[in-house]
């Protein structure tokens, strides 16, 4: 019996999707229990499985026996506008989720890089926060709990649906940014905000140095923008670097904050929307995307370092948060060298997106600090004892 026959028998014909160019069977379980059944079987049979969402972020190119896509897990079992919480399955596209939330007056303050249809599970698993991290924190801050299935098919619940929760260890934080190495996220409990009544974007063009100083001044002024992002000319599709400020909240407070911005140019609503959308999509175009995180005061130095080592054509940075995202083309050797250089400065580099040959050589993670590597390996063995989940965690 072939793998395909086994899967058909387990999950039914409807779970089989068309294969990609590499002809790896693509399976779309229709429920969390079906994911557990599939992975349990994969574990017992020794099948190697790659995890996919909508297929718009990480390339679907890991060599495996089958691809498990979450795209049929696209239900939103609960939206509670009064409590500002929601529960959504991992395969729902962010665009669809946003719309359903907006219809109920709620908002998920996350704006990840990539196309609008990226799945929620992909965003959580890769912890890819966008410019809104400045005002609303990283992806993990928006999670109340997750349900995931381990590599050997166990269904594990972590966290809950309420605003505060310290019952048990926080396995939710392990899953956020785990790149699927510790299981397949199937259900996510989210912390929401009220849909802002005002949402405006202002931009200022100039030299990188000049705009970095302006960003520092804004951060020091007590203004608390939702986003404060320094964007390279190519990425912003402008002639010069752009500092973009996004303000959200009540009309009165936003208007008051706008008054403090001075010489920025205000974008019309659709222009502002387009600006942030293009920025997000820009990171899904070139072959390699990574993020680094340093201390805020080192942002300028880190931008210089990136410019010197890999160029700064496609780059976006939150100087006040110390976060930088880079996109472009880079060899394995160059990425490994850059990671070593940054590690010496105590700055982690997370490879977010790249072809399999680069991912497997460089690894999403690496350059662990003292003693952390064995813990990561131990956690990996715990949640995927047979190594069924094919994830390039550590590189070569």
């Amino acid at each position, binding site marked *: 019996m072939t793998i395909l026959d086994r899967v058909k028998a387990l999950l039914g014909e409807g779970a089989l999707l068309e294969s990609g160019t590499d002809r790896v069977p693509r399976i779309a379980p229709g429920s969390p229990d079906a994911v557990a059944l599939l992975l349990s079987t994969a574990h017992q049979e020794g099948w190697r499985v790659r995890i996919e969402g909508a297929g718009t972020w990480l390339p679907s190119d890991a060599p495996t026996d089958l691809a498990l896509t979450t795209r049929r897990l696209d239900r939103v079992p609960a939206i*509670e506008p009064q409590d500002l919480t929601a529960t959504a399955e991992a395969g729902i596209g962010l665009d669809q989720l946003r719309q359903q939330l907006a219809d109920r007056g709620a908002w998920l303050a996350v704006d990840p890089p990539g196309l609008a249809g990226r799945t929620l599970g992909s965003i959580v698993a890769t912890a890819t926060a966008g410019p809104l991290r400045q005002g609303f*924190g990283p992806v*993990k801050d928006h999670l109340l709990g997750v349900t995931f299935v381990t590599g050997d098919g166990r269904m594990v619940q972590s966290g809950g649906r309420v605003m505060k929760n*310290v019952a048990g*260890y926080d396995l939710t934080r392990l899953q956020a940014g785990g790149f699927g190495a510790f299981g397949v996220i199937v259900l996510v409990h989210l912390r929401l905000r*009220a849909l*802002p009544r005002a949402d405006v974007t202002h931009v200022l063009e100039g030299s990188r140095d000049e705009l970095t100083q302006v960003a520092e001044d804004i951060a020091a002024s007590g203004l608390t923008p939702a986003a404060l992002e320094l964007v390279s000319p190519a990425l912003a599709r402008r002639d010069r670097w752009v500092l973009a400020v996004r303000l959200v909240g009540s009309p009165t407070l936003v208007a008051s904050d706008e008054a403090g911005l001075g010489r920025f140019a205000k974008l019309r609503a659709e222009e502002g929307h387009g600006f942030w959308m293009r920025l997000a999509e820009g990171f899904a175009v070139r072959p390699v995307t990574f993020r680094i995180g340093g201390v805020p005061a080192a942002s300028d130095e880190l931008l210089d370092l990136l410019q010197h080592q890999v160029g700064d054509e496609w780059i976006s940075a939150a100087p006040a948060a110390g976060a930088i995202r880079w996109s472009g083309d880079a060899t394995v050797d160059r990425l490994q060298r850059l990671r070593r250089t940054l590690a010496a400065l105590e700055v982690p580099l*997370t490879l977010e997106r790249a072809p399999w040959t680069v991912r497997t050589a460089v690894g999403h993670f690496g350059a662990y*600090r003292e003693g952390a590597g064995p813990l990561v390996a131990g956690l990996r063995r715990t949640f995927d004892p047979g190594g069924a989940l094919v994830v390039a965690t550590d590189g070569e």
Partner: protein
Amino acid sequence: MSRPTLAAALTSIVGARHVRQAPAERATYAMDGLATHRRLPDVVVLPGTREEVIAVIRLLATLGIPFVPRGAGTGLSGGALAQDGAVLIVLTRLNRILKLDPANRSAVVEPGVVNARLSAATRPHGLYYAPDPSSQSACTIGGNVAENAGGPHCLKYGVTANHILALEVVLATGETVVLGSPGGEPWGPDLVGLFVGSEGNFGVATRISVRLTPLPRAVRTLLADFMALRAAGEGVSAIIAAGIVPAALEMMDQSCIQAVEDSVYAAGYPRDAAAVLLVELDGRDDGAAETEADAVTAILKGAGARGVRSAKNEAERERLWQGRKKAFGAMGRLSRDLVVQDAVVPRSALPDVLETIAGIAARHGLVVSNVFHAGDGNLHPNISFDATDAAMRAHVEEASAEIMGACIAAGGTITGEHGVGLDKLRYMPLIFDAESLGAMHAVRRVFDPDERVNPGKVVPVHACREWARSANPGTMPRGSGAVNPGAPPRGQPVLAQ
């Protein structure tokens, strides 16, 4: 190994002054802030440096002796109690602020630094450490990390986990690991996030990098009083639903108000009110804070507030907050013993759950006072009782379990900031199935394979599905583990005699 021999070995590391083995000395450490649990440690050791911590832990690893890390002992879950031959490692002597970095809004501290002292040290730089548990004048940052402590101002600024950038941790073996980075970005999976809130089960944090927050430039503190508890709960929901995130949004019921007003912490709360809300709003300038304060005042009046007043100056603000923060102490006037409970419910469930709790209290003939973080649905029902009365102790046990059950039934959880420790062990199977508890147990064993660090806490091992031996886990129905929520709980607390 005999106690004197072990004490001698520990003395060779930290000196005789810092090893406690006499019964009276050890009795000091037999409880934490929750007086319903009592465990006498075998030996107490107080290392003064990270090197001494490492040496002590290596010694205990060599001898295979379990140990329990402890900060100031202000925890409220029996989490820092040592039992069954475990050594208590008290970290209060590691109390240095190692680095202040105002430019990057961060600091590096040892675990024994007192929460309020850190904010006092950073205030001249226009910064503070945002998590502010009610015990902040005594509790330590290390304890805050272990418990993922919260506090009134966590509504807007987040709990401890949101403020920890990096950790140096000594594992059970005595090996040192470094988790996280100075900017807060993880090197791989978020091991800092996993460690925070692990209640000392994963190791001992010896260096803690924290994020600091700019002091608010303008603050408005409002006191709203209601003649019905339900109306106050509805006022809370209305504020949040309007998209306003106050810095703090606290509620006290009448029993709590009266205890405070009868005490030296009297804050001027109206004694006849069924409930008061303390709402704090901050902003970058007076105009911004005032705008939000006006909006909140209108919402609260719409919800039925009898009156809403704003603190006129800093002294009045401090007085209003002192009443809230010292409310637990004020309840000492009501009875000789107090159980401080901790649970979380969806905000919209607050009015119903508060009524249910009042019903439970009436049925058991107990006084339950509520003082809590209403903005995030984090309840603290406090049961006043006399522990010398066996019948009353039984009622307290039953009422506590019923309150937890009501919170779980409302979609909530058993602890929002106090942790599981010993006190909530028996409730864990009510919110996690055997597979999920098994996963937690397995993670603990990655950090501490012999389960020697703070044994017997957080995860009820008897309720876990065996992680290594399950034959066909994918096909097992969830929630079908060998757990019967109605069965007599094991590991239940022992009320103080």
